[in-house]
């Protein structure tokens, strides 16, 4: 099997959050190759139809067309994609969402900090953790 060509698939419909995430990751010197999907349908298209294999997926929950929970469910249900690390990155702190995500086999659940600086820091920590420290199966 070949090396992944994409590091991060960011599934995020909020343009501000997407922009900020992109900027924070650029700052980390990881040189992360990032692709943004603006809704759940696009995420599924990229991963399940086109066969894109990112090293990690950062997944928002509230998304147009197909929501994040359903994206997670479909990625985990498919033999070819179930091992891709998925981190839910959301503003929801609701117990129900956390429970459901873990039941579906999320790797990690991170709440987006509201404050700008903290958001920035969290995203760069996330990038470092999943791209530098963590090992993904090829």
């Amino acid at each position, binding site marked *: 099997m070949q090396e992944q060509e994409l590091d991060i698939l960011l599934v995020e419909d909020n343009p501000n959050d997407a922009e900020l995430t992109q900027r924070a990751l650029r700052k980390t010197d990881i040189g992360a190759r990032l692709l943004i999907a603006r809704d759940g349908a696009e995420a599924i298209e990229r991963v399940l139809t086109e066969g894109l294999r990112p090293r990690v997926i950062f997944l928002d929950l509230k998304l147009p067309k197909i929501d994040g929970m359903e994206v997670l469910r479909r990625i985990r249900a498919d033999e070819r994609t179930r091992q891709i*690390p998925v981190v839910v990155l959301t503003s929801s702190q609701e117990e129900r969402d956390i429970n459901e*995500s873990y039941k579906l*086999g999320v790797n990690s659940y991170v709440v987006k900090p509201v404050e700008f600086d903290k958001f920035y820091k969290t995203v760069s920590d996330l990038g470092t953790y999943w791209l530098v420290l963590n090992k993904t199966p*090829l």
Partner: protein
Amino acid sequence: MTSLSGVEILLVEDNPNDVELTLRALQKQNLASKVFVVKDGAEALEFIFATGNYSVRKIDDHPKVILLDLKLPKVDGIEVLRKIKADPRTKDMPVVMLTSSQEERDVIETYKLGVNSYIVKPVDFSNFVHAVSELGLYWGLLNKVPY
């Protein structure tokens, strides 16, 4: 050593040097007081499932993360992982492999069993300390667990 309740990080590691180094790195993040160390896979299972020597524990008193070595005495890390992820009472607990094995076979097998993350122990001393402190921060502070 921590008391048996309120443990936040369970470290499953048989190598005393790695234990020492891991604790030192976590100390820097003020996380060391919440770490509990077990030295083999059988003891890890007793701790996690609150049986044997750990029957005074409550099974739902989950740590925030389990740092699990692969090569362990008595019961190996893969088997410990399998048991955690196969049981509805424990399967939502984040498990991170912390191992010297870079073998693709081990990476694939652990992801198949539902590991949350796989970290190769850096050989170099300062890299090891750095990796462990990042690890502690991530699972101790950034990640949210469903309990």
